[in-house]
Structures are given as structure tokens and as C-alpha cells.
């Protein structure tokens, strides 16, 4: 069995890291299904900045087994289309046009966190995934996009379905993509309705901005708005849940670390970076295609071949960082692949960082004597977006906000 299959095995979910050493021995390795798996830091970074690598699956040699009906979002497109759509989306989210969007959300994030943690009081046991790590990012992305939070039950299962059907691997891809497509389709129909409404009566949210903005480069078509909104709604919370849950898990396993973080709240800044390196919510970038023969790491990836980047293995590459398998708060110059790199660098990174910093600091500060009820916790099935399904903790009390 090749290493990729072993990593994808649900039994490996709690600790995929033990396979990465063997994986990195061949930096670029051909898997049974024809995928080229890249696992060393330098090679991953090189490919993230290599214009011969496409993010558009339609460039695959194995003619697409399933022609999607949906307009791809920018995550599945290449420049210049990717750049245009990302720029148009960024206009309502960050620099250069809206640099203060995330900072302005900070008080709201803190208030939401406070009320979520308040609700943990009066008992000694809680599931931090269900009760904190999930609801916070959902509330934030809903507010930002302009999606009514009451509709959460409508999109929750669909978003999960889309995430769980992400690769990597080619074997059951057609099947997975069909399932994903169906779920995306339904999410799209829901968001299309909202987008239309916002187009007619704009409010102060991203959906309205995307629908109404027209500039020198034009604007987005409604299809483009919908595919962007589907992407942001899903990516806006499915990854942050894992960052928060992986964070608490990592801290709770290390009481001395918890102590240090409690004593020095500023340390949450390097702590979240180290989490992104050590327990990254996105373990693989699973959908790239070589446009030309690319010789790298002693192997030639042929044009048209699928390429998977093992980001989590790269961030723990001993050729890149010292003692990579240790969680080290004091790492100088922590350069990691937690949010990818190159033109597809995570769109929502500042949001995820800020949310994780706030939630983790508040949990550390307010939970009295927290401890894990189960270690390892049960995991969500996806090997790509990896994180606990539940994180049950026991505690002695909840300090006031």
C-alpha cells in the first residue's frame, strides 16, 4: 500500500504525522493512482510559485470524468481569471480597498466568544467543537457575507458534504466530485436567492458589495458572485473550526504550555502560528495540475498529471525547521505552509488568525482547570481538512468575562 493510502485511512486520522518522515524520503513521489505527491518544504514552496502548476482541474490529462455545471470559484482558476475574481472579492474584505474590515470585526468576535463561553458555565463538561469552535466562525462569516445565521441548519450539512468529498487521490474522484457537485449546487441555489435579494436591496455586507460593485475592471456576474460566496461561506468556517479545536487539543496536552499562555496573553500570537505549522487545519492542497513537464526534487512530473502538495509534511520538514515535531512557542521566524502560498494564499487567513487568537485566549483565560475527556478525540473523516469531530473537555468552572 502506498503511503498516501495509509494516510487517507481513517484509522490514521489522529496521527498522520508518523507517516510524513517516510513520505519526505522521496520529495516528489508517484502514487498508484497517478498522483504526484510532494512532501518537502522547498519543493512545495517552489511549486506554489510555479506558473506551470495550474489550479484548474479542467487541465487534467485524464479528461474530466465529470463536467461541472457550476462556475468554478477562484480557488479552482488560474491567473488572469483567478486574479480578477480574487481582486473583486478582496475589494470588500481587505487591502488595498478595505484594509480595516477584519480589525473592525474584532469587538464583535470577542463579544460572540464571550457569550459562547458564558454558556459553558454551570456545568463541568462541554464539547468545544459544537459549542465554541463551530458557532463562532459561522456567525462571523455569516455576518460578513450577509447570510442570515438562522439559515445555518440549511447549509451546515451541505458545507460538510462539500468538505468531506475533497480529495486527495484520484481513485474515487469522479464519485466524490459528483457528490460534491450536488451539494454545491444546492448551496448555490440557496445563495443565489440571497444574492439576488442583496442585489435588489443592498446592505452593508459582502454579498451586496459583490453584487453591486462595478469598476474599471467591471464587476462579478451573478454566477461569479454565487461561486465566490459558496467558497467563502465554506472556507470561512470549515477550516477555522479545526484551527481552534486543534489548538485547544494541543494546549490541553501540554499543561506547562497552557500555564505560559495564561500568564502571557501576547504569546497567543506565536502560538497560533506554531499551530498552523504543527497541526494545520489544511493538510493537503489536493487539486493542482502540471501544465508542462516539471523536473523537481529529482522527478519529472509530466504535463497533465495531478499534483498533491502535502502541506502538513512540508511544515514539519527537518530540512526546513529545527526539531519539527515539537510544538515550540519560541521559534524564531516561523515560516510555515499553514495557509499555503503564492497567488492562492488563503483568502481568509487574517480572519482565521484573529478568530483563533481571540477564542483560544478566552478559553485559556476563563476555563478553570480544563482537561481532555478523551485523547485522542474522534476525528472528522476528511484527511484534507483535518480536525476533531468533538472535543469534549472537563473543567471545574468558568471565570467571568
Amino acid at each position, binding site marked *: 500500500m502506498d503511503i498516501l493510502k495509509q494516510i487517507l485511512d481513517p484509522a490514521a486520522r489522529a496521527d498522520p504525522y508518523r507517516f510524513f518522515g517516510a513520505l519526505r524520503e522521496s520529495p516528489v513521489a508517484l502514487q498508484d493512482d497517478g498522483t504526484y505527491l510532494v512532501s518537502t518544504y522547498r519543493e512545495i*514552496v*517552489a511549486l506554489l*510559485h*510555479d*506558473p*506551470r*502548476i*495550474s489550479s484548474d482541474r479542467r487541465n487534467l490529462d485524464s479528461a474530466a470524468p465529470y463536467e461541472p455545471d457550476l462556475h468554478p470559484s477562484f480557488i479552482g482558476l*488560474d*491567473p*488572469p481569471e483567478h*486574479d480578477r475574481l480574487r481582486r473583486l472579492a478582496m475589494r470588500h474584505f*481587505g*487591502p*488595498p480597498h478595505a*484594509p*480595516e*474590515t*477584519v*480589525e473592525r470585526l474584532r469587538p464583535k468576535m470577542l463579544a460572540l466568544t464571550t457569550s459562547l463561553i458564558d454558556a459553558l458555565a454551570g456545568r463541568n463538561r462541554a464539547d468545544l467543537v459544537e459549542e465554541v469552535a463551530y458557532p463562532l466562525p459561522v456567525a462571523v462569516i455569516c455576518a460578513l457575507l450577509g447570510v442570515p445565521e438562522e439559515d445555518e441548519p440549511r447549509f451546515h450539512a451541505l458545507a460538510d458534504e462539500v468538505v468531506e468529498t475533497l480529495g486527495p487521490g484520484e481513485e474515487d474522484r469522479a464519485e466524490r466530485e459528483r457528490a460534491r457537485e450536488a451539494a454545491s449546487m444546492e448551496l448555490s441555489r440557496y445563495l443565489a436567492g440571497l444574492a439576488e435579494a442583496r442585489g435588489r436591496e443592498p446592505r452593508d455586507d459582502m454579498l451586496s458589495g459583490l453584487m453591486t460593485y462595478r469598476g474599471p475592471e467591471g464587476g462579478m456576474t451573478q454566477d461569479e458572485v454565487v461561486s465566490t460566496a459558496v467558497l467563502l461561506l465554506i472556507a470561512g468556517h470549515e477550516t477555522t473550526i479545526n484551527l481552534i479545536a486543534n489548538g485547544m487539543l494541543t494546549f490541553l496536552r501540554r499543561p506547562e504550555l497552557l500555564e505560559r499562555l495564561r500568564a*502571557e496573553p*501576547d*504569546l497567543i*500570537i*506565536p502560538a*497560533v*502560528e506554531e499551530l498552523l505549522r504543527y497541526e494545520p487545519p489544511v493538510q493537503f492542497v489536493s487539486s493542482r495540475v502540471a*501544465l*508542462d513537464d516539471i523536473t523537481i526534487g529529482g522527478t519529472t512530473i509530466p*504535463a497533465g498529471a495531478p499534483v498533491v502538495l502535502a502541506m502538513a509534511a512540508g511544515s514539519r520538514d527537518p530540512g526546513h525547521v529545527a526539531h519539527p515535531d515539537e510544538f515550540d512557542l*519560541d*521559534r*524564531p*521566524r*516561523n*515560516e510555515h505552509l499553514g*495557509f499555503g*502560498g*503564492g*497567488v492562492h*494564499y488563503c483568502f481568509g*487567513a*487574517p480572519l482565521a*488568525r*484573529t478568530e483563533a*487568537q481571540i477564542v483560544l485566549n478566552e478559553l485559556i483565560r476563563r476555563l478553570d482547570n480544563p482537561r481532555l475527556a478523551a485523547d485522542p478525540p474522534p476525528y472528522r473523516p476528511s484527511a484534507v481538512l483535518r480536525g476533531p469531530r468533538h472535543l469534549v473537555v472537563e473543567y471545574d468552572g468558568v471565570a467571568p468575562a
Partner: protein
Amino acid sequence: MRVVVDLTRCQGYGQCVFLAPDVFTMRDEALLYDLQPAAEHREHVLRAAAACPVQAIHLDRTALPMPPPGAQEPRSAASGGDGRIVIVGASLAGARAAEVLRREGFTGSLTMIGDERREPYDRPPLSKQVLTGQVPPEHTLLPRLREVDAELLFGTPATGLDVAGKRVLLADGREIGFDRVLLATGTRARPWPDAAEGALHGVYTLRDARDAAELRQALAAGPRRVLILGAGFTGSEIASVCRELDLPVTVVERGPAPLFNAMGGVIGDVAARLQRDHGVDLRCGTTVTALESDGNGRLRGARLSDGSTVEADVAVVALGSVRNVEWLRDSGLAAGVWGVTCDAGCRAVDLNGLVTDDVFVAGDIARFPHPLYEYQFMSLEHWGNAVAQAEIAAHNMVSDQAHRWPHLSVPVFWSSQFGVNIKSVGVPTFADQVVFTQGSPEQGRFVAVYGYQGRITAAVTFDQAMWLEFYQRQIERAAPFPPDFRHVGGGVDGEPVPARVPERLVAAAGATVVVTGHDPAERRASLVHPH
């Protein structure tokens, strides 16, 4: 607190702008920032620095949550661990070298000699955020990345170097002995050749913090028109600032286009369009023949070589730089208008072309051979080169022969003008053809790749910095030109065109060398100074 962004590394991810919008700002990809933000922004800046995906943001050591244990420990027990090291020139290269010496485990005595009174500061902001008023000129001090524990002789120019006697001579008569010395005295602005005209009130040059403060004041006063002599990077950046301040500006350039000397005519044409689109009155193929007084010692305007005149109350002479080598005149080193020649290990070369042992060179003043460019000697007035060379020089100063490093980094340069982040990697003038591989000038964003005799030698990006490191690797491995690979967004402007680069510049009039003697044992080179 103090901040500096290594814009050589920065790829324009904008994470810093999200997290500290009061300190970092961005126009498209051009990043500008306050180097000394107020204490209230500390937490924001810490978040920004931690988030930078390429870790390009450097802070004062003292601003960090706590000095990371271990990070301060010397990296290697170097052989030259003690003794006396003197650094002459206390700016970017000098300051960085001092830090690296300590990082490398140098425990001996360290002396820094600088003719400016201020602590080392950063120059690139002087023609950008300082001139717009976004950042006050005194807010440009470089962060102290580590404790250097050095004797600081600031405000004291060095006037001579006695290589055999191992002494630096100072203007105040003092002599400072050394075991090893680093020469990092950089360059100064080339003055207007007519001293009387150059002294007119309203005529400026820009190299140091005082220049920037004075020019900022002149621009803030709202002159009727600013005249800029020279459309290299500095002149073009100042023109950009003028337009941002809504000041009428005329740029006079001898060459066929702005940035021509650094990037050739193809990109020069793009730069010319950029300037004109922003309302610059750009006159290429033209020179200023005289600066004119109003009769009271104030600038009134200028006469141009095409017979026309320009009325302006502020003129900036941006005609390049002159290397600060006069103090080395009797040192016996190969120091002249070209700079101080050194080997790839930053060791100075003497007049005869022999490598010396204890004299090292770094930064704008250095002239070194680059293997990637046929071992041609080059001087790079680039921020990134000063930093890289300072690292190499400092390391080699405390390492034995077997552990020395060569300075082989591919040159990277950046500039921010008219809201565009311009970057280059390699040596764009080392080229015969150019091709646009990604984007296009019409879109305002592109990658242009330069080739010389069938291999890739350089790339220039406008707002596409993220791709640069790919092209850097292509340069390093001498990949074929024109690039023949299929890639994203390719084939927009497929065909290579002539690069139209300047004839390789012959060093201007100044010191030259003559060789005397017959036997190998007595043949010697010596400098001839013009009068």
C-alpha cells in the same frame, strides 16, 4: 518601537495591512509603512510580523514578547571569535554586519564609525513615505535585531585607512586600530556639476535623512512646479510623490525613457506611460543645460537642451550617485569611481588586483565579480544587496578560509511608484531580448523575462511579485530563453523583442590605473587621479 520590512522578500500578501492597518498601507501591491509606530500599535505590529508568510517584517529585539531563548545564542563558534573589528560606515550594511558578527559568535571589541550623527536608518522610505508626509523623516531608524555591544563613533568621518599599520584615521585626529575592518561607506548623491547653480535656493538632492526633511518641507510648501533631473528610480519615485501631492512636475531624462539604465527600453516605455498617465510632464532624450536664478539666489527655472525652458521653484537633482571612496585614496586598495573592488567573499582587492586578508567591503560601495554574469564585476545599489553582502562579509570576517561563504545571491531590487510595486531579479541590463510571460503592460500587471544569448538572465514584475522566486530559480539554473514552457495566463505577448538595454556603462572620468615595471616581481598598478 522600530520596524523594517525586507521588501526584497515581501511578496505583497498584505497580511500585515489587514492586521495593522494603521501602520502598513498598500496600493495594489506597493507596501508603505511607518518604521517607528507609536507604542499603542505594538500588539498590532506583533500580529502583523508573526503573520507575514515570508517573515519579512523585522522588529526591534526589545519589542518581542520575550527574547526567544536560544535565538540569541551564537550560531557557530567561529575561529575569529575575538580581537578588534572596526566597521566604517554606519548605515544599512554596517549595522547589519555588526549584528551578524555577534550572531556568529564574535566576542571581541567592535567599533562603528559613521559620519552621520544619527543611529543607522533606512533610506528607501526617504523617497517614498517620508516625502509624502506619511512618515516623519526622523521615523526611519533601523530596528536593532540584536544586542551588538559596540563602541559607536557617530559624527566622526574616517579620513584614511592604513592597511599595513591596521589603523583607521579619523577627521578629529584619532586613530583606531583593528585586526579586521569592514568598509561600508556607501554612496552620496551626485551633485549638479555647476556648483553655483547647485547652490541656488530650491535645488535639492536626496540621499540622507536631512535631505529628505528639507525636500519634504519644500514639497509641503506647495511649489508651483517641481523639476526633476533624471528619471532613474529615485527621480521617478520623487515624481510619483509629487503627483500624489498634486504638484505639477516636469521630469527631464537624458535617456530614451525612465528607468532605462536599470531595465532597458521595453520596460522604460511602460514606465514612461505610467508617468504620463499620472500627469507627469516627462521629457526624454533631453537634458537640463542650466539652472537659472531669479537674481536673488532662488531657483527660477531651467533651460533644456532642446532650447525650451521650464519654470520651477523646486528642482531635484537625481543623477545617480558617487561612491564614498575619497578617504581610501592612499590606502593602496583598488578604490576609485567604480567603488572598492573585492572578491566574491567580500575581501578587498588591492591596487594590483591581489586579494587582501583583513579588509572587507559591503554594500553600495562594493564592486564584486558575479559568477552568474560571466564573472563581470558589478556594483549594486540595492537594499537587498547591502544586507546580503553584509551577512557574507561579517561571516567571512570571523571564519577561516575553509568556512567562508561566497556572495552569490541573485540581485533583487524593488521600487514603489505611482502605486505600482516594481521588482526585478537578476541583472536586466545583461540581456538582448525581453518577453512578457504573464500579464501585459496594458493590464498594468506583468512579468517580463530577460534573456541573453539563449538563457534567462533577469525578470521584472509590475504588481506580480509572487512569481519572482520562480524566475529567480530559472536564472540560477540558466534556463533557456525564450521560456518554452506552458504556464498559467501565458502567451499574452508571446514574441520576444529586442531588450534595448544601455551600452554597458564605462566608468565616468575619475581615477584610472597605470601599470609599471617589467619583472613579475616588480610589476605594480597605481592609481592616477585627474585634477
